[in-house]
């Protein structure tokens, strides 16, 4: 039962990763690409971690996966922010005054 549930979660994760990848390839500019990547990948990775925890059926492993997810979210949101800051979008960049 938990195995099937885990596989369902992983399938849902794959959908989000796919959507994120398609967004990365198809969207026109850096900001919307970043939007597609970070939103989809964070949810996708979260679902993947839930699925893997269910398949692994080990509470310690689940905690580790949760920590991995949190770390990746913090890092990816910060780096997305940094990339977005490097892209000219009309207003002047305060770091370059």
């Amino acid at each position, binding site marked *: 039962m938990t195995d099937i549930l885990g596989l369902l979660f992983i399938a849902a994760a794959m959908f989000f990763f796919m959507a994120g990848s398609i967004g990365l390839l198809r969207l026109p500019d850096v900001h919307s690409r970043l939007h597609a990547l970070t939103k989809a990948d964070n949810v996708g990775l979260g679902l993947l971690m839930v699925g893997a925890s269910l398949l692994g059926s080990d509470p310690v492993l689940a905690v580790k996966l949760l920590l991995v997810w949190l*770390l990746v979210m*913090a*890092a990816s949101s*910060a780096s997305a*922010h*940094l990339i977005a*800051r*490097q*892209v*000219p979008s009309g207003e*002047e*960049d305060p*770091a*370059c005054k």
Partner: protein
Amino acid sequence: MQMTAWHLMDMLLALLLLGLAWGALSTRDLKRGVVLFIAFGLLLSLVWARLRAPDLALAEAAIGAGLSGALLLSALRDAPAMEESGEKSIIPKLGVGLLSLGLAGVLAWAWFVAISAGAGERLAGIVMVRLEESGVGNPVTAVLLNFRAYDTLLELAVLLAAALGIMSLGPARRPFAPPEALLASLIRWLVPLLILTAGYLLWVGAHAPGGAFQAGATLAAAGVVLRLAGRHRIGLPAGIRLRLLMAAGAGMFLLVGLALMLTGRPFLGYPPTQAGLLILLIETAAMLAIAATLVLAFTGGRPKTDVLANTAGKLEASTASGPVPVRPARAGGANNDCNPEQKAC
């Protein structure tokens, strides 16, 4: 069914690896090549994991993809803008091509020999038989720090030579601009986490994948992150203490080896009862030396700390707020404080 799925995955990994390698080599845009090389390193670490070599996977991810990538990117930052030079000369290309062809030939020959030799005596078997005497439970650490300790000692000596070379390159590269709020707060908890992870990798290396090299690379990553955030000193000590730190790895190795000779044992022939402790001692010193050398490589030269050390005493110069003490010495270049990525400025 299980087997074919894994086969498919392995073939996909191998093809992607070749594709990324080709992309990294064939692109004319250096930055693109570097990014592809980083992706190549990450994928290669997955391949190592699939080959059941988690030690190598960790090392490849930390050193091959992470730190080498950071080094290449920081080198690009200071490289003069490359003009699109046309075909200059065929000679270097031909030389590199011939060299690669020769290397590929040697590899193919080695692969053929390994395949056709059949099941002979493998080194892994010999290691496993005598693992008990090594003082550690991780066969990789046992080989690196005990059975073939000479190799690792010489590796650390090579690293020391590299550090000396970097020191002689001149002053460090110009530092980065101070970070904005989000990056600053990320760094505030990422750096302690990296240091903790390095300590864990060092400790766990005795009985599981990990060890001085992975731990040193992780510790160096903390320094790289601090450097990217505009910190000047990035935790490196100044003057003689920096030199001692760089020499710590090879130095501790030699000290332990010579001390063992005084007790009548061969050089680096640990007594089995104390082997675990001695290995941990050497690995701790090696981790610090590796981290210091890698951070030094990232800064690209001798840290200019003497003036600051005089004025600020032993206070960490990086605690000074703002970019005041980090004015680059290098003349020329208008927007010194900006990242090269900031094309807008």
